[in-house]
């Protein structure tokens, strides 16, 4: 047992999305702290993984004990403006189905929220929705 490796968790989350969106129809995806210049009139997804609360799960010291590690995934879905929400929701469904109630490599994904329409897209010039979900994993020391 060991302290949780945050990059392993991030890799599990991001890898799952990258693999799915690499399938046809391919959708470009960009993650935290990556340079990206979107192509006008095309679709892309932005995936942001953040770690949040850590809580005691069990009694014990620095060995033989467990913690809960909770985080949130925010995925912004961008599709061309002025052509309706259909294409956007299709991508949103792919993302939603990818994580909904899944348990992957010890990471428990909760039911997603969204896709919710974002009133002021950033960057501008796109139709944007957002899919959010929390996840939990367990650290065994």
């Amino acid at each position, binding site marked *: 047992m060991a302290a949780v490796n945050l990059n392993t968790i991030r890799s599990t989350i991001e890898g799952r999305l990258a693999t799915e969106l690499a399938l046809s129809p391919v959708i470009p995806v960009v993650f935290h702290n990556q340079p990206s210049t979107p192509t006008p009139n095309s679709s892309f997804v932005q995936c942001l993984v953040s770690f949040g609360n850590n809580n*005691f*799960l*069990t*009694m014990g*010291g620095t060995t033989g*004990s*467990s913690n*809960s590690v909770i985080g949130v995934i925010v995925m912004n879905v961008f599709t061309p403006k002025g052509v309706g929400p259909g294409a956007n929701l299709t991508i949103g469904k792919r993302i939603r189905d990818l994580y909904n109630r899944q348990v992957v490599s010890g990471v428990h994904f*909760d039911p997603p929220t969204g896709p919710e329409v974002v009133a002021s897209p950033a960057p501008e010039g796109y139709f944007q929705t957002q899919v959010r979900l929390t996840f939990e994993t367990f650290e065994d020391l």
Partner: protein
Amino acid sequence: MAFYRGQQGSVKFDDAGATGVTITSTRSWSLTVEKESLDTTALGATYRANVGGLISGSGTVEVLYTASSADETNVFIEHVNTATDEGLALFELFLDTTGTKKISFDGVITSAEYSATVGEIEVITLNFVTNGDITLGI
């Protein structure tokens, strides 16, 4: 002055009553030790008098379910289902991680509540009563 937090505690148990083994994934424990009071007020007295009577204890241990099957934790969470229970199981409730501050006694697990709630970790709540001496090594 030293203070302690709950995560420094732990629980050991042995159904054979010999050597306590740590119960993994314990979330909490509590023990209430009670002493009966016997009324010895003399007839005509103004103030009531009492002396101490029998001492007993009861409490609760909460364990997170981990599907462990081959250790004392599994014995612990299933011990309520023991057909013949002479109350010889050893309980040790620790207050610190060094393992020197503990309350120990023999006891009987009187009930177990197994529960699963959507979105939450599965918890087993075990209630017990003491059998005989209670040693407060705290």
